[in-house]
Structures are given as C-alpha cells and as structure tokens.
C-alpha cells in the first residue's frame, strides 16, 4: 500500500457528529462566503461554522439570511463575484431554494452545499429520507452521497475541488443522512489546515472567458473593471445553446470525481471505491442491492453475515447520483442475476428515482438482471438488519424463480 502524504498518525482525530465534520471541513477550505438559514437536521453545520466566524478562526463573510431562498441567492451573488461559497440545508429549506438551484448551475457557479437529507412535509418530519435530494435531481447540480461522517468530512473538501475544476464549474451537493450521520458521534480523522489549502490550490481560481464587447478574455466574475452581464434574457434563439455546456460539463464531472478520489487517497490514505461507485462483494454475487447513503453500512454488514451462511450477495453503494454512472453500473453488474434497487424516497405514481436510473442503465444491454425496487426508510424509519436480510432473501427467491412478480415493494411498513 502506498504511504499517504499525510499518514494517519499525523491526522487529528476528532469526536464529532456528521454535521460538525462538515463544519470543520468547510473551516479548512478557505471559504469566502457562507450564507445559510438554520433547519433541522442541518443546523449544527452553520451553527458550528458561525462559532468559527465569531471566534475569528476563519475570515469567512457569514451572511445570516432570512430564508433558504435568500441563502441560495446570496451564494449565487457571492459566487458570481468570484467567492468560494458554501451553504447547507435540508428538506423544506432545499425545496424553498428550488428555483435558485437552477440559476446556480445555469450560471456555472461552483457553490458547495451540504444537504442533510430529511423527509419532505406533509406530515412534518425531521428525520432522514432522500425525497429532498431526489427533488433536486434535475437541477444541474452534481450530487454526491456519503456513507459515514468521515466521508462527509472528506467529501466536503473534495466537493470544492470538483466544483471548481475548470472543465466542471458546476455546483455540488454533498448529501449526508439526517440524524443517522448528522447527529451521531464518530471519530473523524482531519488533516492539518495547510494540507487542505494545498489540496485545493489555495483560494478559488476563476476561469476565463472571451467577451466580444470587451475584445479580450476576462475572468468570469462580476467586476466593475470588466463589466459582465450574466444570465440576462435569453429566448428561443440562444437558451438551448446555453444549456449545452451544462450537458458537457456533467459528462466531464465523472472523471473529475474519480481523479479527486485518487488524489485524496494519495494525500490521506482514504478512498471511496473509485469515487463514483463503492462496491462490496459484487464479483461473484447472484443478488446485489444498489443503495445510497448511510444504509449501505447496514446492507454491507448483513451481506457479510449472509456470505458466511453461503448466500452470494453483494452491495453497490452509489457515491455519485448526478451525473448518474450508467455505464459503470452496467459494467459492474454484468452477469448478476437479480438486482434490488433501494430507494429512500419515491416518485408517487412511478417508482423510486434510483430504480428508474438503474433500469435505464440496463435497457441497452442484452443480458440484463431482473430488477426489483424496494422503498424503505421513509421519514427516518430505521433499516434494521432484519429488514436488510428480508430484502436479500426476497432477491434470492426472485433469482430462484427467475421472475419478478412485484416490481415495487415496500420494506418495513405496517399493513
């Protein structure tokens, strides 16, 4: 094994919860502006960060706004002025930001946002599911999901590097499960500040763009010395053309996510699969589940127990949901008999959003596995090892009869 540039003994172990892990990560990222509004279970992130600001531990401009709509607006303004910008939110807060999410990506602003996943109302619920993240899937943001608090810390730092990559220039949402991660204490290894600074290459670097009326290349930022007007009226004559670079940037993002994961490995000794997909015991598996977020831990644990009993089961955790790794999923699960797709959220009148993507991934391959969609854990209902086993056993049964009788199943709900 390669010796990391910062060996584990030189990393500081901090007993923090997932939210604090994110706050400490942001503290080290030379962030110019943070604008946020508190909402459970995200509150600890900005609460902790505002402490750092009040204590003079960071030089960040903290903007306490009156709503999430304003939080994202302030981030858009700051990022357009060239600032490295961060915000975080959950559920209703994310929903309130919605129209601005599209503006952030359309203007190609590399804002980083921690989304602490929480169920959407009604009825009101503060606990974890992925309905909030699924709601923003078409907004042009890169969406990463983490499994534990260590990964939340690592991914938050990586997110700035991914977002600001010259070929990407897109906002990134780092998703961590509300309460399961956000409020659960875990030992997290943290890097020295200067290593994070070096990893990110210092403060945000701006890309350049050619503007006809200025007759030269200028930095892409709002600057009175080189006045730019951004995001103004754009009708059927150019709007379509302005959307295409977003398509292209998303295509390039996968490779950047992978490369950043490798760089992180060289720096810290930690990596998460190939950065895009983190798989467990998939190679010879007959039945595999695909899952997002912290539930992957439970699924891997149960899979390891079932392996001991002789069941060939495996787990695929997608770390990246947008852009969706279609060819990677297809390649990885080639030859698997049956795949269970686990969604912590669903599109009413349809299936779980993850299931729809996995179906698309396999449509064009001749040999495709049988697919079953399991909806679980809505409103923070725990996915117990027993439920995880129920899913695996169900998949094994489907493999045995080679037929899916029910495509949409609900796990852990009382009838």
């Amino acid at each position, binding site marked *: 094994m390669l010796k990391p540039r910062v060996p584990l003994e030189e990393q500081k172990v901090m007993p923090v919860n997932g939210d604090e892990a994110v706050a400490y990560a942001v503290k080290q990222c030379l962030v110019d502006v943070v604008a946020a509004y508190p909402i459970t279970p995200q509150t600890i992130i900005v609460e902790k960060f505002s402490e750092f600001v009040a204590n003079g531990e960071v030089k960040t401009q903290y903007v306490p706004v009156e709503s999430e709509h304003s939080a994202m607006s302030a981030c858009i303004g700051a990022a357009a002025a060239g600032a490295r910008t961060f915000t975080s939110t959950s559920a209703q807060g994310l929903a309130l930001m919605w129209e601005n999410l599209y503006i952030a990506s*359309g*203007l*190609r*602003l590399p804002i980083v946002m921690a989304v602490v996943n929480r169920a959407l109302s009604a009825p009101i619920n503060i606990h974890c599911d992925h309905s909030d993240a699924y709601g923003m899937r078409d907004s042009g943001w890169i969406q990463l999901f983490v499994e534990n608090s260590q990964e939340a810390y690592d991914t938050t730092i990586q997110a700035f590097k991914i977002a600001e990559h010259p070929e990407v*220039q897109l906002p990134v949402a780092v998703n961590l499960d509300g309460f399961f991660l956000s409020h659960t204490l875990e030992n997290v290894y943290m890097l020295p500040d200067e290593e994070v600074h070096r990893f990110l290459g210092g403060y945000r670097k701006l*890309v350049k*763009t*050619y*503007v*006809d*009326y200025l007759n030269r290349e200028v930095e*892409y930022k709002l600057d009175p010395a080189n006045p*730019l*007007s*951004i*995001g*103004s009226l*754009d009708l059927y*004559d*150019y709007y*379509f*053309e*302005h959307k*295409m*670079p977003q398509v292209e940037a998303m295509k390039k993002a996968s490779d950047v996510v992978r490369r950043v994961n490798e760089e992180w490995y060289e720096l810290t000794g930690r990596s998460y699969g190939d950065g895009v997909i983190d798989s467990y015991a998939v190679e010879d598996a007959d039945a595999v589940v695909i899952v997002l977020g912290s539930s992957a831990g439970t699924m891997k644990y149960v899979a390891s127990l079932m392996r001991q009993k002789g069941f060939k089961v495996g787990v695929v955790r997608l770390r990246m949901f947008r852009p969706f790794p279609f060819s990677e999923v297809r390649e990885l699960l080639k030859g698997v008999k049956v795949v269970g797709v686990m969604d912590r959220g669903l599109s009413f009148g349809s299936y779980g959003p993850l299931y729809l993507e996995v179906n698309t991934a396999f449509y064009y391959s001749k040999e495709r596995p049988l697919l079953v969609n399991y909806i679980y854990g809505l409103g923070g209902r725990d996915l117990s090892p027993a439920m995880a086993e129920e899913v695996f056993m169900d998949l094994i049964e489907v493999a045995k009869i080679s037929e899916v009788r029910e495509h949409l199943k609900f796990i852990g709900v009382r009838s």
Partner: protein
Amino acid sequence: MKKEPRGWRELPIGAVTYKLSLEYKTGGWRTLKPIIDLSKCTRCMLCWLFCPEMAIVWSGRDVLVNYDYCKGCGICAYECPVKAIDMVPEYS
C-alpha cells in the same frame, strides 16, 4: 467577429452576455408609439427621467424618442405635465 447565430461551443461560460444590449433592438415589441408635440413640450425632461429604457434623447434643442429601443410603455406620456406626448397605435 464570429458568425451569427453562434453554436454552443462559441459562447462564453455561464450565460455571459457577449454583446452589448445596444445590439438587441427592442423597438419591435411596441404596439403604441409615443409622439412628442414639441410645440407643447417645455423641455422639463421628466419623460427622460422616467423612461425605463433610456429611450428619450435630448438633442441639445429638442426631446426625441429613440424608436429602436422604445417599447411603447407610455410612462413618458403619463408623466408629462403638459400632456405633450400622445400614444398612437403603431399600425392603424
């Protein structure tokens, strides 16, 4: 100068407007056209002050309308204290 209309690879990043808005003439949106009666006009310049499009021009002697950009909103006619501006249909 690149050929218009441009392809998507030829545009600046992030929906930056690469041309001045002066090149985007909006006068064609107009249905009502302001006509200034210079014999009534006192040159108070309130129309110039209120015009949201900066389409009122002072020639040094007269108050004129730049019809390339005037969208015909009628604010000038409404604000004119001596009722020197008439809004007349563009096509009648």
